[in-house]
């Protein structure tokens, strides 16, 4: 066996990475461009895993809903930066983890800092509303909103909150003077 020091270090990292994934019960992780094909592949993969594990139809439907909206959020809203900035351009990280009581769907993508305020106020508004309030907000947005050029209806976050019945957990980490990494976790109870 060739003992390349760099390679050995890398393989150790991969093993640590694997153990970390197991410890956090991550069943799916992806970093890169989110396309429609990726969305279809991930939802179908997760769907067949849930069927195998005899998850209820209700839980399967909710996980499917949340995954689609999260993936489409990245594909429609992740900001594209300079092409050579391969770390951030129009891409994102997508994770699904499964715990005893719940599924967590987490996304992370780079956004322009000037969007932080708008996203924060929308998420805070959603988190402050009860079931009825969310329903009204959804109906109003559906009536008054317009589909954006990329086909976004501005309904994704509201829909996730309604389908899961849980607060949306989010965070921003600065990546440069003008951009931040936006993280969002949605939780779907397995005992619906």
């Amino acid at each position: 066996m060739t003992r390349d020091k760099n390679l050995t270090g890398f393989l150790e990292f991969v093993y640590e990475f694997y153990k970390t994934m197991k410890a956090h019960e991550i069943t799916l992780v992806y970093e890169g461009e989110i396309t429609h094909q990726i969305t279809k592949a991930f939802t179908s993969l997760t769907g067949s895993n849930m069927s195998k594990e005899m998850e209820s139809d209700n839980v399967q439907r909710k996980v499917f809903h949340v995954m689609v909206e999260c993936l489409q959020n990245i594909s429609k809203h992740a900001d594209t930066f300079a092409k050579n900035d391969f770390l951030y351009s129009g891409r994102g990280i997508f994770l699904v983890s499964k715990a005893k009581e719940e599924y967590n769907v987490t996304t992370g993508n780079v956004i322009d800092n000037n969007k932080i305020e708008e996203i924060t106020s929308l998420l805070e508004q959603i988190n402050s509303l009860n079931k009825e309030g969310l329903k009204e907000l959804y109906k109003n947005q559906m009536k008054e909103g317009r589909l954006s050029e990329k086909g976004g209806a501005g309904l994704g976050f509201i829909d996730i909150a309604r389908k899961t019945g849980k607060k949306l957990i989010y965070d921003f980490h600065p990546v440069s003077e003008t951009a931040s990494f936006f993280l969002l976790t949605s939780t779907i109870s397995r005992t619906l």
Partner: protein
Amino acid sequence: MEPIKIKGTDDTPEIMLDAGNDVFEISGRSLPEDVTSFFEPVINWLDEYAENPKPKTEFVFKLTYFNTASSKVLLDILMKLEDISSSGKEVIVKWHYPEDDEDMKEAGEEYADIVDVEFDQLSY
């Protein structure tokens, strides 16, 4: 009017619009890659149909899943039906939902609240 017949796929619904045979139906799953262009022929067809609708239009929705972008377009379709209804023609929306799917049932109730059209909720 030329009927529209679009076969369903795993991300686009089946669509049957055939005024001659009184068939108006959208069914299956809806998360098209480009919602606007997928539904454009449907909206155009309805615009044309609205100019000379039949005395009675029974429009069937039998969806198992739709994403939020599709929900907006479904409202646009329902608003066209509302226009036909308010012009004095009879319009009935038949909203089918899987019997264990509360969210799909509720989605139908919400549309019924928003648009002024007769709505029948049917579980299957």
